[in-house]
């Protein structure tokens, strides 16, 4: 590697410094202040008092993970092994739930599985009942179902990708040697897909552990996770409890994030060709199996496609007045005090800024992460992982207390919202840029050097154009995450700072369902468009971003 000069070091160190100031310092100061200042509950009291909530957090995460695996594994196998038309479309569409903001998922779920939702209405009609028959979008069933909805695509994609890389000749050899399908699955398939299974399990658990909007909406205040409790404790000014909870949560999540990075890295071995995978058509299965497969598809349709399609209904159907209306969209474009135009503009403005910042920080961070300098690489590794292991509420809480208050920004904390959204999306942006950077032919860099380009010229004329796909994907990812972000924004925002995501939650609370639905529809369209753009630009599936 050619010798580095000071300017390069500064450029690479900048994002590390920024992240230290914006993430490490606020969180550490919050924990420190909470544990020592004495306002509110002590740490031990917090643990004792919140024990039931901690139990619930772990319980629902475990249950959700198990459900996701149970529902996802068959899907993974079908995706890898079954031959059917339009597989690529299905593969691309399958990750859709995962790119939807949680609050949008809430709307979809309420509309599909909730009171007077699609299923409930059907059952009411079928059973000739005047009142609600089935409400699955509430309490524990709602939380578990919604989490499953979210994570099944993840399981399917990760595991099926691993399955497709399996050498079919190994299985054929086993078959010739007399193993039946169960034995083959146990002895050959399962060990091969184990790393991806572990990765999917940890990611799912982590997501469910830190889940906020879904638990908030379906838990009705009775069912709380640690994340929700931090939010509550902060709101009733019990900073001791809030900080203690932050500490407890971080211990869990950082451990998990670390485990994930270790395990995911080790499984990223040979990327074999997928062309030789053996797929069989539907006709080659036994009738009972065919029926099961069809049932599975139907169930997936209801579970996954249902809520997404329901969002369209939610945007137009007012369950209180029981009629279809355009009021939802009138709300979106209303510039009045309670209208949706301000949140819409806020969403666009904050997300765009957060995207710019994410990219601006992500590029040097990606370089630092790939650097050969001794301390830069592990340090930037940690910095990139950190936001994954720290919940959004914690980030927001830290920023508010450590940065907004001393600077007086809390009078109109929109910069803090932008910063929070940036920090939350940064790991993914960096990862995307890094993937791109690794695929740049190093000889091109050497040519640029030999031909006399300065570092800046080389960066601008050679590296950035080649990084462009990665930057674009990273930017779109950051934008989608920022615009859908609800937790941190809810924590920080004054009513004039509300984004569309927060407005959805607010409207839900006062039962303005159509307004919430229309907003959700807009967010969903934005996220899906963003995702499709990403898929088009990058050859590698977006799933690559999830591998560390």
């Amino acid at each position: 590697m050619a010798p580095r000069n000071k300017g390069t070091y500064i450029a690479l160190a900048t994002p590390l410094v920024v992240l230290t100031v914006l993430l490490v310092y606020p969180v550490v100061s919050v924990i420190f202040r909470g544990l020592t200042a004495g306002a509110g509950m002590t740490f031990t009291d917090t643990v004792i008092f919140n024990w039931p909530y901690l139990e619930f957090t772990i319980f629902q995460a475990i249950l959700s993970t198990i459900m996701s695996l149970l529902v996802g594994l068959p899907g993974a196998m079908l995706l890898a092994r079954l031959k059917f038309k339009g597989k690529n479309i299905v593969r691309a569409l399958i990750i859709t739930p995962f790119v939807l903001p949680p609050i949008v998922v809430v709307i979809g779920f309420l509309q599909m599985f909730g009171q007077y939702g699609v299923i409930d209405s059907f059952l009411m009609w079928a059973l000739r009942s005047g009142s609600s028959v089935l409400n699955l979008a509430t309490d524990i069933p709602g939380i578990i179902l919604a989490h499953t909805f979210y994570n099944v695509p993840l399981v399917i994609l990760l595991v099926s990708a691993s399955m497709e890389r399996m050498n079919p000749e190994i299985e054929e050899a086993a078959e010739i040697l007399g193993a039946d399908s169960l034995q083959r699955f146990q002895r050959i398939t399962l060990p091969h897909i184990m790393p991806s299974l572990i990765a999917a399990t940890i990611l799912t658990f982590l997501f469910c552990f830190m889940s906020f909007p879904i638990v908030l909406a379906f838990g009705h205040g009775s069912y709380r996770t640690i994340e929700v409790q931090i939010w509550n404790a902060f709101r009733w000014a019990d900073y001791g409890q809030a900080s203690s909870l932050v500490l407890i949560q971080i211990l869990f999540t950082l451990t998990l994030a670390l485990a994930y990075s270790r395990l995911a890295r080790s499984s990223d071995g040979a990327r074999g060709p997928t062309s030789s995978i053996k797929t069989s058509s539907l006709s080659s299965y036994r009738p009972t199996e065919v029926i099961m497969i069809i049932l599975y598809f139907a169930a997936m349709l209801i579970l996954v496609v249902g809520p997404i399609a329901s969002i369209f209904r939610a945007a137009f159907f007012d369950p209180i007045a029981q009629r279809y209306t355009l009021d939802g969209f009138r709300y979106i474009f209303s510039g009045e005090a309670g209208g949706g135009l301000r949140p819409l503009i806020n969403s666009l403005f904050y997300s765009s800024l957060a995207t710019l910042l994410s990219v601006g920080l992500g590029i040097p961070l990606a370089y630092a992460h790939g650097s050969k300098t001794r301390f830069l690489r592990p340090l930037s590794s940690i910095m990139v992982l950190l936001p994954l292991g720290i919940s959004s509420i914690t980030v927001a809480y830290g920023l508010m207390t450590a940065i907004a208050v001393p600077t007086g920004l809390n009078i109109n904390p929109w910069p803090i919202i932008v910063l929070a959204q940036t920090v939350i999306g940064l790991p993914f942006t960096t990862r995307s840029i890094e993937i791109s950077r690794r695929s740049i032919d190093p000889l091109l860099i050497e040519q640029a050097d030999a031909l006399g380009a300065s570092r800046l010229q080389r960066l601008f004329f050679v590296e950035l154009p080649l990084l462009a796909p990665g930057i674009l994907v990273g930017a779109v990812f950051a934008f989608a995450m920022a615009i859908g972000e609800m937790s941190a924004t809810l924590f920080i925002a004054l009513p004039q700072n509300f984004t569309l995501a927060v407005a959805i939650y607010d409207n839900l609370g006062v039962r303005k369902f159509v307004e919430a639905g229309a907003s959700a529809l807009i967010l969903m369209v934005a996220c899906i468009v963003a995702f499709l753009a990403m898929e088009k630009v990058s050859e590698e599936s977006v799933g690559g971003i999830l591998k560390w």
Partner: protein
Amino acid sequence: MSVSEYPVRRNPQKLIGAVVLIVVIVVAAYGVVTFWRPRFVVYTYSSFMDWGDEGADAVLERAFAPFEEEYGIDIDFVILSGDANFIVSKLNAEEANPIADVVIGIDNILVLQETARNVLEPYVSPNLGLINETLVDSLDPEHYLTPFDFGLVTLVYSMNKINTTTHPELANLTFADLAIHELASALVTEDPHFSSPGLSFLLSQIAVYEKILHEDWTSWWDTVEDDIDVEEGWSDAWSLWSTDPTKQFLVSYGTDPAYSANYLGTAPDTSIAPLFYENKHWAWMQIEGIGLVKNGPNPNLGKAFIDYCLNVAVQQEIALNQWMFPVRYDITLPEVYDYAIHPDEMSILNTLFNSTEIASNLQDWLQQYDAVMIPG
């Protein structure tokens, strides 16, 4: 190809510089527009003065324009989503560098808490003479808060859904009545952590059980926890109650019948169901106050503001926009207030406690409430 047809390279520094400059200018402009104003900041809760026909903006503009003119200042009403509890927490978070000058909405219970007193500066307004002395003492004898409005927190119900004919117990409602599954599943209340009416209701219930019935108050909650609906805030609760046909009872204000009459233009369809014990009807009195924020940026202006809030210009807007009683005794109430219940007409549950009792037990009570309400 001629020379001019070949592509020319641009200097990257110029391009980068231009882009950065544009972004910085745009952001700085937005920042300047949002931050750079001399201002006077009032923290208050959502739906403050918002329940009239005109909406909060118009009412506040009209009520406070003279103040703004006299002192040449722009009042920034920061409407914080949620009820007053959140405001206290926000003020505590900003303790090191407060940006608010004055806070409206902390009530007579909230002010008993250390967290509230921690962020307030006591102030004795010269205008206190204009209001009833008992109100001042009931709210806060130490003057951390100056009374602004008051009202009663009680159960209300919609006469379209149930009435005293179908449910005769409504005339003399007790907690035992409410514990029955049919009524319990029709009850909507608010979270005592986040909502002052919710807290009032909890304290009402504790007052009745501890002081009148001498029973363990947590038992009632244990019985009803699976049936009742606890919403986070009053707005959420009110929305649920008014749109869901299965919800009959709402923990709300004694002025709701007046609101209903005003809205319908005729007799109200909302009625109150105060608790009935010892042959008396009881309700909980809530007094909301204005407080001077400790170490606020404009203390003198803050004091002037508090004084101003006791003027007719402001107090006369309260009845029809806050749907609470103004504290000034010389304000004429609109006709529809005939339907509202006044504290003089009820036995006040607050009197069952002495003020130190609430202050010292509140945290424990809230914790016990939480423990009981954990599902399963």
